[in-house]
């Protein structure tokens, strides 16, 4: 590990002067050792996340277009960018589409994921291993390659879906484009997103299910509780907190989905009618060159996501203390 020069500046060991018990919380001296250990990480975070975040907020209050990219000094225009963005019907259309896609994908992912987890608890060992391995492979697939493969499966000319539909319905589906029409574009996108997200939900839920104590379930069934009652009264309370965390994570991930949409637009599909919020930020700021407006949309997205993830952050903190 001597290849990284930056490492040399951060000694891995604390100075030998601090001999007393390291776990004693009462230390009056300034915490030099942990600070020194944290310095490299803090510098990276400050420079490549903190500083851009500050810039982002500043930029969202500036007129920052092509002229400024080429060196003209940016001019502060107050909340004009926000006004322009929030009164732009396209922004609301994009936001609406993102939310709709997110809701459909999240609902499908959660329902199927939990169903598969419950199914896994009831399967024999061989089948359960087979299901785990298949889910694992789907999970490991990079989002971009998954999108491209699904794009191939839904291909207009030689795609498998059109071939199967032709065989099943007897009508000729060859040449039917799934990506031109925004509604079916989103249907394909939702399938890709859900396919990639189910394994995480299924595995997490399955792991939580396996922590439900068998004795309690047995006791309940001796007391006459049926399968559904057992699930509702015993299993579900165990699952509640993990399901909420999964739900929040899925909402966040699906709301900011980028690679799948952007790649699917490259395969086919009309960009202007299929943008979701992430892709919209990219097209406003990079393609159109209006970094000020892109910054304003970004700030709005950050605020929305942080509001949603407040619950998740609280959960993690509670666990911490």
């Amino acid at each position, binding site marked *: 590990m001597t290849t990284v020069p930056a490492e040399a500046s951060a000694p891995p060991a604390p100075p030998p002067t601090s001999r007393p018990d390291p776990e004693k919380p009462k230390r009056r001296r300034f915490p030099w050792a942990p600070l020194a250990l944290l310095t490299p990480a803090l510098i990276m975070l400050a420079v490549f996340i903190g500083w851009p975040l500050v810039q982002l907020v500043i930029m969202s209050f500036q007129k920052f277009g092509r002229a400024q990219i080429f060196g003209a000094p940016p001019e502060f225009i107050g909340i004009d960018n926000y006004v322009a963005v929030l009164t732009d019907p396209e922004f609301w259309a994009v936001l609406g589409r993102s939310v709709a896609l997110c809701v459909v994908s999240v609902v499908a992912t959660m329902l199927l994921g939990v169903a598969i987890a419950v199914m896994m608890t009831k399967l024999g060992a061989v089948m359960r291993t087979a299901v785990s391995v298949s889910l694992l492979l789907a999970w490991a697939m990079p989002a971009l390659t998954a999108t491209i493969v699904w794009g191939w499966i839904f291909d207009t000319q030689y795609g498998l879906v059109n071939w199967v539909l032709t065989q099943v319905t007897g009508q000729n589906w060859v040449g039917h484009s799934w990506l031109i029409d925004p509604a079916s574009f989103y249907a394909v996108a939702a399938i890709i997103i859900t396919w990639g997200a189910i394994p995480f939900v299924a595995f997490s839920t399955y792991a939580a299910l396996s922590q439900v104590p068998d004795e309690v379930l047995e006791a309940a069934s001796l007391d006459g509780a049926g399968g559904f009652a057992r699930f509702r009264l015993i299993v579900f309370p165990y699952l509640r907190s993990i399901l909420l965390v999964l739900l929040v994570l899925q909402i966040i991930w699906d709301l900011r989905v980028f690679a799948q949409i952007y790649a699917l637009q490259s395969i086919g599909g009309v960009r202007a009618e299929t943008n979701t919020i992430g892709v919209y930020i990219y097209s406003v700021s990079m393609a159109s060159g209006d970094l000020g407006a892109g910054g304003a949309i970004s700030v709005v997205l950050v605020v929305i996501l942080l509001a949603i993830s407040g619950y*998740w952050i609280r959960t993690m903190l509670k666990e911490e203390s």
Partner: protein
Amino acid sequence: MTARPRRVMSRVLLNVAALVVIVSSLFPVYWMVNTSLLPASAVRSTTPHWWPDEFTLSNYQEALTDDSLLNALFNSVAVTGLTLVVTLVFAFLGAIAVSRFRFRSRTSFIVAILVIQMIPAEAMIVSVFRVLDGWYLLNTIIGLSFVYIATVLPFTIWTLRGFVNGVPADLEEAAMIDGCSRTGAFWRITFPLLAPGLIATGVFAFIQAWNEFVFALVIMTRPDSLTLPIWLRAFVQATKATDWALVMAASTIMAIPVIVFFLFVQHRMTSGLVAGAVKG
């Protein structure tokens, strides 16, 4: 599972459902590999080839002799390697600090980690682009790696912290009583026990950097600085999605390292989250 006899019917239904899950999870992966092993003429036929009956490696040969792909492959390997090594070192130091020492700003540091975790890359592209532009880091492997390191660090510190917490400080103290120095106790006792954690976080950093799309799209725009995902996307668009055999070969080349490494650490990815959430 109850030992009561179940109706055969529900047993069958259950296994059919399991089969459906297996097939729909596996099929796209299989179809990618299958298509990549077929000649372009077979891919462009009216009836699908369900297995590589006209087996050929020509797509891989073509892909791996394509200069632009090799260039993208090199960029991806360089960015991923740099990200991996630097992240591991920095995250390791940071995790020790957060876990082994108590200091006043510790909680706020953890909150900061979680908040940063939630800031979407999509919202950062605008300003990261501008900041890197100002420092002449656009289209450079170092520039992109630095951004990846910064985005991966919060999670890796968080995960490694869990591993460090799992090694009781008593072990170190016992070694120190037996005459080890503090540093020696750490390197001889704690460090070896952390190896699984370092592997897990390393694989996480690898997968993130290898798959990352949004930042690479914005930062690496010159044709010779594309990373693999960006190259693949551009290639699909440039060929108007016609040469699926070659595209699938390139996709397989990109997916295989991720799948292999992923299988190593999959256990860690769920257990941490679940253990915490179920207890709460």
